[in-house]
């Protein structure tokens, strides 16, 4: 560490001071990113912190958010891992197209994702109407809808992370396993997946983080009903008008969770080269 700091000082002394034309805009950008978070921490009414967590609405929202994000991660593991494997290992027609389609929700505005979900699974949606006519079940405005919305927006993070890990570890060890008599399922279980585990963990954390903050798609597709579809972000949005203090407390909880995620991923992405 000392040597790296020394090297930096030595470089500064040989190359001169950083120019103001870079320092000033860089400083403004940093302030823009840091100040709102600092204000949130300072504004949080720490005195009533625990009391505010005891209301029914908050407890429901916490429960739904925790449930939705947990189910989302499980859905990613069970469904997203096979999809990532197919994209990385099986040469089928339309693979490039499918990979592009999988990435779309990454850049899609969440509200648009919600509208898309309504048109597919809504009461009169493409699949939703069939579901309603055959079983009488409708998805919108249920906790299931929350989970579906969360999975929809989170899955791409997981799939792309795992697919990247599968590609990086390559097919070499799959070939070795085949020469040792292993079928593809055995190879997947004992070789491919263990070697891709860093990608699986990173993808799970990313998916979980995305689910935790999900707001737009959820409120569009599942609504904002306390006790069934109201998640933490929805509750924050709602309380900000009536009771800003509670909104800040709830935001603080999500901030702490986000920072915890960042700390978990620190070694992966935040280590300077």
């Amino acid at each position: 560490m000392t040597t790296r700091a020394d090297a930096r000082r030595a470089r500064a002394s040989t190359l001169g001071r950083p120019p103001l034309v870079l320092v000033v805009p860089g400083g403004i950008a940093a302030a823009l990113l840091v100040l709102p978070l600092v204000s949130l921490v300072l504004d949080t009414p720490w005195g009533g912190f625990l009391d505010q967590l005891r209301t029914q609405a908050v407890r429901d929202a916490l429960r739904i958010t925790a449930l939705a994000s947990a189910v989302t991660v499980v859905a990613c593991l069970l469904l997203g891992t096979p999809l990532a494997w197919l994209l990385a290992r099986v040469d089928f027609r339309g693979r490039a197209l499918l990979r592009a389609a999988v990435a779309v929700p990454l850049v899609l505005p969440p509200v648009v994702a919600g509208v898309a979900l309504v048109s597919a699974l809504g009461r009169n949606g493409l699949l939703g109407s069939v579901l309603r006519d055959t079983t009488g079940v409708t998805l919108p405005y249920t906790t299931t809808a929350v989970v579906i919305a969360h999975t929809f927006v989170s899955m791409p993070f997981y799939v792309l992370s795992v697919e990247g890990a599968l590609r990086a570890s390559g097919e070499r060890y799959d070939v070795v396993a085949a020469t040792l008599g292993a079928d593809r399922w055995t190879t997947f279980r004992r070789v491919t997946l263990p070697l891709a585990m860093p990608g699986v963990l990173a993808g799970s954390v990313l998916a979980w983080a995305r689910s935790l903050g999900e707001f737009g798609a959820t409120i569009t597709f599942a609504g904002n009903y306390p006790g069934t579809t109201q998640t933490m972000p929805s509750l924050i949005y709602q309380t900000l008008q009536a009771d800003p203090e509670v909104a800040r407390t709830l935001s603080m909880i999500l901030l702490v969770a986000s920072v915890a995620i960042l700390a978990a991923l620190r070694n992966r992405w935040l280590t300077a080269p």
Partner: protein
Amino acid sequence: MADGAVSTASTAGLTAHILVPDRLDAHLVAAPGEVMAVIGPNGAGKTTLLRALAGLVPMAGSLTVAGRSWTDPPVLVRDRNVGLVFQDQSLFPHLSALDNVAFGLRARGVPRAGAEATARSWLARFGIAELAARRPRELSGGQAQRVAIARALAPDPALLLLDEPFGGLDVGVATTLRVELARHLASYAGIALLVTHDALDALTLADRVLVLDEGRVAQTGSPQEVAARPRTDHVARLVGLNVIREDDVFRSFSPSAVTVSLGQPEGSARHRWRGTVVSAAPHGDAVRILVAADRELIADVTPAATAELGLVPGREVWLSVKETAVRTYARAPG
């Protein structure tokens, strides 16, 4: 080769015509227990041959091992009973040495306890029982290659394929491992194919040598035959002989039989060449010089003569060899 060996091979051994378009067209026959060295220059198709036998490269032609066809109908890699040893070992990085060796047995349905016991005994045979719990990154190159060979042998393959197993190892380690491998191959009942760049491997480990050149079999025979009567420049270079092809015969002679002079040699020497020294390097007690004439030739001269004649790269020299030092043999195999 005796006819008996061929007929044995065709029922219990290996009979193959490996056809990979533009890369390989090779017939080979091997008897059970036989160790065949595959040698040839880079790009001759050695690795392609191994990969085709393992099923990793699509091939036409035919392949029968131990009385069962692997090509008609095609047999998947995992169902061919092969053991493949890669030059870079390719040990599973997330598994211990023991789990690596047990992998093939587990994959073929042997229960864990039995597979581990067998794997332990294989590690013991290679003298590395105490390394069972180590991960590949905690092993030296020689240790890792022992694990890789044990992993390939543990499921008792019908065909053991070794792709330059000593490549990338220190000379001392390679020498030790070569002796160990010879011992294991002696007690191995299946067919072993060993791709190598090293004449020593072929001479010490193999019962038979298969010389590949440009995707075709240029020569097969016992190591002694191939070394004494090489039919390709590559093998001649490997065993340190000069070989000249003339119409329907080969003529070979040792580099120590070559006389080097600055002026045109007088006397009766029938074989003489004018050329330029390309390189000079110590070779045992002598200096081996490579001369580019109308073909490349090697000559061994004393260090004193090297200095006296000024044999540095670029020097124009004459080479000659007496007829009595030249061995002549028919070009067609047989």
